C-alpha cells in the first residue's frame, strides 16, 4: 500500500514539474523525479510480480529498481551541487558520475553473486541474512543517504536566506531530507542486524520503515512542487497588488502631473511604461516630485499619503537584500566637499 502511495505521489510530482518547470533550462529535478518515480513503480507488488518473471524470475527487478533509485538520486545530487554553495570536495566526489557508476557496478556485482531465489516481493526479508545481499543494500542506502545529506545542507542554507512564504518549500525539503536520512539509517541498521542475526533488534526498527518512507517522499515531493509554485503565486500576487496601487494612486497622480508634468507626460511613448511596476514607480516619483516642489501647491491627505507609502514599500520590496542595497550613506556637505 505504501509503495502505491509513494508511486502516486512521485508521478504527481513529475506531472507538476513538467508543468511548472517547462520553461526551465535545468532539468535535473525533473529527471530525478521521473527516474525515482519509475523505481518506486517497480516496487509495487503486482507490477513487480508481473515484470520479474519476464527477466528470469530471480528478482532482477529489485536490482533494476534500486539502480534506478540511485540514478535518480544522482540527478538530484547533481542539482544540489549546482544550486548551492555547499560543495565540500568529499561531497562533490560522492555525488559525481564516476562514483555513481562505480556504485552501480558494485551493487550489480554483489547482486549477481548473491543467492536470489525466485521472484518474491519480500526480497530483503527472505535473503537479507546473506552478507552479499546485506552489503548490496547498505551500498544502495549509503549512497542515498549521502545525496539526502547534501540536500538537507542545501535546504537548511535556503531556510536561512529566505523569509515568509518562500521559506516553506525549503523547510519541507529539509524535513523530507531529514526523514530520508533517518530512513537510510534505519535500512542500514536493519541490514546489519539481519546479517548478524539480531532479528529482535531488526524487527524493533522495522516499524519505523513504512512511516519514514511515506514521510520522506511526501515532504520531498511537497517541497519540490512548492518551490516553483510559491514563486509563481508570489509573482501573481505582486502583480495584482501593483495593479491595485496603480488604480488607487491614479487620481492623485493625475492631480500631481497637472501641476507639475513629469516624464510620463513629456515622454509618453516610452516602452518602459508598458510594465505595470515601472509605471507605478513613475507615478510615485511624480507624485513625490509635486509634493516637494516649492513652485506648486500640491498637498495630499493623510490617507493618500499612507497609500503612497504602502506603494513605495511595495516597490522597495522590503525585507530583501535588494532593499538594503538601495540605502546609501550620505555625508555632511562639508565632509563631501573636502
Amino acid at each position, binding site marked *: 500500500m505504501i509503495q502505491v502511495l509513494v508511486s502516486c505521489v512521485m508521478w504527481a510530482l513529475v506531472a507538476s514539474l513538467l508543468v511548472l518547470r517547462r520553461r526551465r533550462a535545468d532539468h535535473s529535478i525533473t529527471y530525478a523525479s521521473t527516474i525515482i518515480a519509475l523505481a518506486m513503480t517497480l516496487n509495487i507488488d503486482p507490477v513487480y510480480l508481473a515484470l520479474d518473471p519476464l527477466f528470469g524470475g530471480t528478482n532482477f527487478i529489485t536490482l533494476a529498481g534500486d539502480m534506478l533509485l540511485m540514478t535518480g538520486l544522482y540527478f538530484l545530487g547533481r542539482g544540489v551541487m549546482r544550486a548551492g554553495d555547499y560543495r565540500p570536495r568529499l561531497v562533490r566526489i560522492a555525488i559525481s558520475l564516476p562514483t555513481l557508476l562505480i556504485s552501480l557496478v558494485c551493487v550489480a556485482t554483489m547482486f549477481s553473486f548473491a543467492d536470489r531465489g525466485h521472484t518474491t516481493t519480500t526480497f530483503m526479508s527472505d535473503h537479507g541474512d546473506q552478507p552479499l545481499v546485506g552489503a548490496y543494500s547498505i551500498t544502495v542506502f549509503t549512497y542515498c543517504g549521502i545525496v539526502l545529506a547534501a540536500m538537507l545542507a542545501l535546504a537548511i542554507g535556503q531556510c536561512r536566506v529566505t523569509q515568509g512564504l518562500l521559506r516553506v518549500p525549503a523547510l519541507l525539503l529539509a524535513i523530507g531530507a531529514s526523514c530520508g536520512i533517518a530512513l537510510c539509517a534505519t535500512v542500514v541498521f536493519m541490514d546489519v542486524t539481519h546479517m548478524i542475526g539480531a532479528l529482535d533488534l531488526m524487527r524493533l526498527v522495522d516499524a519505523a520503515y513504512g512511516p519514514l518512507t511515506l514521510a520522506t517522499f511526501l515532504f520531498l515531493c511537497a517541497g*519540490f512542487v512548492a518551490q516553483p509554485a510559491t514563486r509563481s503565486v508570489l509573482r501573481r500576487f505582486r502583480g495584482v497588488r501593483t495593479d491595485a496601487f496603480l488604480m488607487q494612486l491614479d487620481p492623485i497622480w493625475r492631480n500631481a502631473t497637472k501641476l507639475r508634468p513629469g516624464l510620463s507626460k*513629456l515622454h509618453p511613448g516610452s516602452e518602459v511604461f508598458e510594465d505595470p511596476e515601472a509605471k507605478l514607480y513613475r507615478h510615485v516619483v511624480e507624485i513625490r516630485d509635486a509634493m516637494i516642489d516649492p513652485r506648486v501647491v500640491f498637498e495630499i491627505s493623510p490617507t493618500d499619503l499612507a497609500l503612497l507609502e504602502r506603494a513605495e514599500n511595495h516597490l522597495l520590496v522590503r525585507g530583501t537584500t535588494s532593499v538594503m542595497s538601495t540605502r546609501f550613506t550620505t555625508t555632511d556637505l562639508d565632509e563631501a566637499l573636502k
Partner: protein
Amino acid sequence: MNIDQEVAIALAGLHLGEHFTFEELTGAVQRLRQRRIVVAEVPEIGESSGLCAVLLFSDDRDVILHAHSDSALHTQQFVLHEFAHIILGHCENDSDALAGNIPDTLLPDIPAELRIRALARGDVSTEEEIAAESLADQLAARIRGVAFAETSYTEIFG
C-alpha cells in the same frame, strides 16, 4: 538615435546584467568615471526653484547633492538620475549645463574647482533630462529586480 535607444545602449554598457544592487551600480559608475562619487543630502536644495539634486564634477571627484525627501524611493531616484547623467556621458559635454543657475546663496561653500559644470534634476524638459530620468527609472527597475532575480537555487529547484 531616439531616447529609448540611447538609454538601452547606456544600460547595456554598464555590463551589470539584468539585475544589480545599488552598491554594484555605484561601483560601476565610479569605475566609469575613474573617480570617487560622494553623495550628500542638502535640504536647502529643495527650497530653490524645484531642484531635487545637483551633480557637480571636477577632475578628482563627482559630488551629488540632493534635497531631502521623506521617501527612500524618491531619494534614490534623485541619486539614480545623477548617476544616469554620468552613465549617458553628459559630464563629457562642454556645455556649462546649469553651473550658472545654482545661486551662491544656495551653495556658498563649494570649492571653485567643483563649479566647473553642474547638472541638476529639476524639470524634466530637455532631451538630456528626459534621457537621464528614463535611465534612472530603468536603473531602479533593475535594482528592484534583485529581489526576484534567479539564483542558482531557484534556477534548479524554482
